[in-house]
Every structure is written in structure tokens, then in C-alpha cells.
């Protein structure tokens, strides 16, 4: 439809950053960047995908490029200008989105944009893996809708496989799932010589990721499900260990009169929350770790992946409780007052949190104050 002559063959034509028409997965941004810089667009795709997953900046940058960078029309001619109103509205929307991202440090904001961005990135990955190379072909609205439906179906199946692999591995079938992943890998390698099985890549990776989560966080679902509260009245009632597969485990030892000597207590929750309430005058030495989540031990807390604390044994006399605790995914809290273990809903962004307490260089980390009295 253009009235201009093709200019691509002219060596003196100025190099402009335009969204690629022929080399596109979504909007041709990476294709255009690749053409502009003369490198393989796959590097920009990887970079944008990584930035999208790690904080969401990639999605923001991509949307900005979609709005502000014109698309080439295949003739090399100057692209038509966009509507100014549309540009201004899109710019305001992007500023708001960017501000929300910055204010909350990434994908955490709301419970909508995070999962939505994740689904978009994964969907784009499926689309690109399956149709990336045939993207230059003729497309119509119906074909595009069919592809979107197929991508959503693949994502839904992948999500189900992820959850299934996670629960199976966490319930003790980890070895079986690992062998399954290896077998799927071997099938992929063999199938690669016969046919295109790329649409199976994301479902296969979903199974692998579910297993990987269990392996890295050490999630163990032995011990049942639900809410368990134990309030032993005497030392004889205190078990050696308390296990829960998934749910909330609460052990309140405030009513127990501990006799001098060392007593060990194991605590394990696969998925959920463990709260141990200990008396003020008891020396408690905690060795604890959380695969993924939040850990609070007597005036010190931390969150993230594989957080742990291994307290040095300081108590010499009197009663001592040595706690060995592990939570796969969730929260582990050792407190003197159960109210300290409550969820606080006071953050401006609306996302709750536990109280932020303690300093990392506190020499009494992981021990109750009563232990310091013993050593003193």
C-alpha cells in the first residue's frame, strides 16, 4: 500500500530502530533490536524474558517499545506516525505501571499483575518455541485465536503437571518423579531425530520445576494435613518430635516445667506454618531452616530461600531445650508469645508481613535470653 520505493537496498539509508515485521514473536521488538545492532535477536529475547521474570522490568520495557517504536512496513519506508492521544494515554499507563513496579520492588504488587505477567511470559515462550520460525507466514484472526487457545491449553496442562509433580515428589515419590524426568528427557532426545515435539517442552519443564522445588526446599509431606495444636501440660507429655505434612502446626510449651538438663525437640512441617511457643525462663537453642519462606527465631528473623540459623550452644546449667526445626515451604517461628507469630496487615501496599525484628549481628541469635543468664 505504500507509495514509496523500497529503500532497503540503498546502503546510505539511515539505520533506524523499527519493530521487525518478518522476525517477530510478539511485536517484533527483539527482532528490530537484532537488526539494528546486527546480532541474533535471540539474545534480546533471552534478556527481555529474564528481566520480565526477575522483577517484571522486561514486560515494562517491551510494552514501552510497543508503544513508542513504530513497526516497519516491509518496504523500508518511513512508518506513519501514531495518534498522539494514544501515545500520551499509553505513556501515562506505562508510567503508572513502572511506578507500581518500583514502589513494590517487582512482581509482588497485587495478586493480579504478578501471575498475569508470568502467564504472559510463559505463553510467549510456548508460542515462540512452537511457531517462532514460521511467524512470517500468513496469519488471520481465526488462526491467531486458535493458537492462543492452544497456548493456554498447554499452559493449563503444564500448571497441572507442575502441581502434580510437586505433590508426588513431596509425598515421597521424588525418586520416581526424577526417573520420569530422565525418561522424558531421553524420549525428547530420541524424538528430536524424527519429529518436532517442541510443544511438549514447557509441560516437560513444568514437571522438572515441580520436582526441583521439592528438592531445593526439602519439602516432606509426611505427617498428615490440617491444623494441629499441641499444648502439653507436663514434661512427660512433650513428644520427641512433631511432624506435619501440610498445614499449621502449633506447639505451646509454656505450661511445661522443664527440669535441669538438655532436652531435644524435632519439629518438621513440609508445607505451611510451624509455631513453637516457649516459656520466657527456658534456655532455648534453636537450629532451624526454611526451604522457602519466613523464619523467626527468638528476636531474629529472615526470609527468602534456604534461610536458616544454627545457634551455638551456650547454656551450661539448668534446663535447656535444643530445637531442631525444618519447614520446607512456609513459615517457621519460635516465639515467647503467640501474638508475636501473628500476621501483620499494616504495610501500605496492603500485603501483610510478619514483624521485622532483630539485627543480624546480635551475638545472642537463635537463643533465648535465659541461656545468657546461664552463661553469665
Amino acid at each position: 500500500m505504500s507509495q514509496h520505493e523500497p529503500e532497503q537496498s540503498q546502503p546510505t539509508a539511515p539505520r533506524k530502530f523499527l519493530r521487525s515485521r518478518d522476525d517477530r514473536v510478539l511485536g517484533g521488538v527483539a527482532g528490530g533490536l537484532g537488526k539494528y545492532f546486527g546480532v541474533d535477536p535471540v539474545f534480546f529475547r533471552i534478556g527481555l524474558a529474564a528481566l520480565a521474570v526477575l522483577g517484571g522490568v522486561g514486560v515494562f520495557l517491551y510494552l514501552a517499545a510497543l508503544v513508542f517504536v513504530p513497526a516497519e512496513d516491509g518496504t523500508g519506508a518511513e512508518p506513519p506516525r501514531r495518534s498522539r492521544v494514544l501515545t500520551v494515554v499509553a505513556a501515562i499507563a506505562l508510567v503508572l505501571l513502572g511506578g507500581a513496579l518500583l514502589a513494590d520492588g517487582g512482581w509482588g504488587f497485587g495478586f493480579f499483575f504478578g501471575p498475569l505477567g508470568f502467564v504472559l511470559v510463559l505463553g510467549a515462550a510456548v508460542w515462540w518455541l512452537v511457531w517462532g520460525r514460521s511467524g512470517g507466514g500468513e496469519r488471520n484472526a481465526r488462526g491467531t485465536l486458535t493458537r492462543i487457545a492452544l497456548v493456554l491449553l498447554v499452559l493449563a496442562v503444564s500448571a497441572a503437571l507442575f502441581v502434580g509433580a510437586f505433590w508426588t515428589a513431596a509425598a515421597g515419590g521424588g525418586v520416581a518423579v526424577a526417573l520420569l524426568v530422565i525418561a522424558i528427557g531421553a524420549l525428547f532426545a530420541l524424538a528430536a531425530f524424527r519429529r518436532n515435539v517442541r510443544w511438549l517442552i514447557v509441560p516437560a519443564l513444568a514437571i522438572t520445576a515441580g520436582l526441583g522445588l521439592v528438592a531445593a526446599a526439602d519439602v516432606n509431606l509426611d505427617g498428615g494435613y490440617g491444623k494441629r495444636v499441641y499444648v502439653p501440660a507436663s514434661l512427660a507429655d512433650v513428644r520427641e518430635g512433631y511432624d506435619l505434612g501440610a498445614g499449621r502446626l502449633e506447639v505451646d510449651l509454656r505450661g511445661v516445667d522443664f527440669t535441669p538438663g538438655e532436652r531435644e525437640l524435632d519439629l518438621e512441617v513440609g508445607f505451611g506454618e510451624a509455631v513453637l511457643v516457649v516459656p520466657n525462663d527456658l534456655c532455648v537453642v534453636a537450629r532451624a531452616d526454611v526451604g522457602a519462606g519466613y523464619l523467626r527465631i527468638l528476636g531474629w528473623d529472615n526470609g527468602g530461600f534456604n534461610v536458616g540459623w544454627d545457634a551455638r550452644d551456650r547454656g551450661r546449667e539448668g534446663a535447656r531445650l535444643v530445637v531442631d526445626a525444618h519447614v520446607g515451604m512456609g513459615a517457621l517461628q519460635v516465639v515467647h508469645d503467640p501474638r508475636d507469630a501473628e500476621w501483620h496487615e499494616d504495610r501500605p501496599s496492603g500485603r501483610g508481613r510478619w514483624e521485622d525484628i532483630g539485627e543480624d549481628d546480635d551475638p545472642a541469635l537463635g537463643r533465648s535470653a535465659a541461656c545468657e543468664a546461664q552463661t553469665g
Partner: protein
Amino acid sequence: MRRVDGPSLVTGLVLIGLGGLFLLDRLEALDLRFGYLWPALLAGLGAILLASGLRRERP
């Protein structure tokens, strides 16, 4: 005979590698942590994406 599909082949090799790693963890031969898992997963994804991108270069 069809040409080998690079991304599928690399995915197979990545899955075998990761599956082996997780098998060792489940058998308690090693203790996998997130600090090692994320780089391993990203490296695997990167290999698959690279294979997808490089194939285009062939005539």
C-alpha cells in the same frame, strides 16, 4: 530423513541432566539448594533458547 530438531534435542539433554541432579538429591547423595537450582534452571532454559535461535542461521 528429517533434520534433527535442535531445541527438542537440547531439551532432552537438559531434562536428563536436571533429572539426574534431582535424583541424586532425593537419594540424599547431595543436598540441592535454591542457590544452585536457579542457575541450573536458567542455564538449561538458556541452552534451549539458544538452540531455538541458532537453528534459524542454517540455510
